[in-house]
């Protein structure tokens, strides 16, 4: 089970999804397409396999995904066919709230 901290990056083992952690701490069973995600490194790619039924809704680049308490938030940096989850519980798209940009 990977240890989550802001900035850590993960890649799906069953699709092309990659994420970066925006919020989160401790050991969290981060999954994509029903399978545990791997720590991302240059050259890491899915080793074949398919997203499981029920976890194949797909991810969208640039979107944020959260758990119900919003204690875990990940941002999709590469899209894919799997759905993000913590264990079997799927993450939801975060509510779009305007961010306070200044640049």
């Amino acid at each position: 089970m990977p240890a989550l901290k802001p900035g850590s990056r993960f890649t799906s083992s069953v699709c092309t999804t990659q994420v970066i952690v925006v919020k989160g701490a401790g050991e969290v069973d981060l999954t994509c397409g029903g399978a545990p995600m791997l720590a991302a490194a240059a050259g890491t790619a899915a080793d074949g396999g398919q997203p499981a039924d029920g976890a194949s809704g797909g991810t969208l680049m640039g979107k944020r995904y959260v758990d119900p308490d919003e204690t875990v938030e990940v941002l999709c940096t590469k899209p894919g066919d799997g759905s993000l989850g913590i264990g079997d519980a799927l993450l939801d798209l975060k509510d779009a709230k305007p961010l306070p940009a200044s640049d």
Partner: protein
Amino acid sequence: MMLLEMAADGFGDRVALGPADGGLTYRDLYNSAGAASVRFRSDGGSHVAMADLSSAALPISLFGAAWADLPFVPLNYRLPDGELASLASRISPATVVTDPDSPDRLTGIDGIGLLSRHGLMGLVDGAEPPEPEWDMTGEGTAIELFTSGTTGEPKAAVLRHRHLVSYVLGSVEFMGAHEDEAALVSVPPYHVAGIAAILSNVYAGRRVVQLPTFAADDWVALVRAESVTSAMVVPTMLTRIVEVLNAEGPDGPGLPTLRSLSYGGGRMPSPTIQRALELLPTTAFVNAYGLTETSSTVALLGPDEHREAMASADPAIRARLGSAGRPLPTIEVTIRDDLGDEVAVGQPGEIWVRGEQVSGEYRGSAPRLTADGWFPTHDGGWMDADGYLHVTGRIDDVIVKGGQNVSPGGIEEVLVSHPAVADAAAIGLPDRQWGERIIAVVVLHPAASATPDELRDAVRDRLRSNRTPDHVEFVASLPYNDTGKLLRRVLRSDLAHLGDGSTG
């Protein structure tokens, strides 16, 4: 590189930089960064630096360095040759991208390889990028920026990729910009706000237009020519821009495309911001407070807050116009006294900040962070009861007269509100009796006049009497650097003869 890679994949055909018609696209920028990284790696340096005005070479070098896992160091090209050379030798061995109009600066320094901007642009033109292989942990150093302290050698503030990414993800929505938007960046490459603007705009998909050398009429013309929708300026630039717009008169064309204008980097004189709010009634104003060491913005005063403060009869709400706004949701702020203890709400002290985007690390120097991760900013300020942060100025600039702390900012505000005064600074010079004496350094508007007594009375009427300047010195202009910072050290040194030469 994650930010640029997402941009190139998500909206690669949008224009990233330059004119809407024919500018560099995100895919072009990505490919060019890749080609640049090959050159940077093969040069074998430990850093990639730039001693040049803004151009397309800036984002290409910034991202190219990141691709090559090398820190990018934008250098202040305005420095005298000797000082510039000294900074370059501190980051040697390095590739330095240079201004083709000043090719001979930095020659002959051990380990420094020069690459002209033209040379860089030539080698990236149409080149295919290599395979992506940049570090994905975020721990590598993205930027080193030399910050000027009040004493000693400049320190190189270190910003790691994770600081910058955290700042961007915390304040920008991916592809949040519409294709018709354009951002004008007129601060030099060695200003952290310029770097932050490039990263934010790339991630948002907002076209960047650069003004390499600021002049207010050029800025106004460029906003109109490129239909610029957002811009970032330092306060001294806004004062000049307001003068240009004022001179165009009430029926002037204004800046109708400018949806938002953000400013930061120093104290904004109230007459300037108030006049700007009047001249640009449909523009959203944002005051962004931050430091190099905090990856730029940590607190914001938003557009509605500006307008509300302007219109309010309540002095507490009106005072927010002079504030830095409220901390970003991802940032904690605390005000501490000399002992590091938290002060009560409304009490002044030193501003400390904490958050993922805050670095506080310096190359070759101890980090300026407490054991529990707070960064003491060396800025004085206070938090009001509504959570607004008020910044009074660098604590080093505080004048100590008769054992009392006097912030120059308050005095300067009063002076600048006088109709005859265009600009003012308050500095402390040695005084045998009082420790320091307060010198008001004043620039009058052309053809305006005011007597020293008139100005001293104005301050005495508005503030406590111990803040009355002991002497008023009229000057033609105040010294500012390129990033809009008033150079108080220069003033203190130039006017040292007005002190009595005592020490301590």
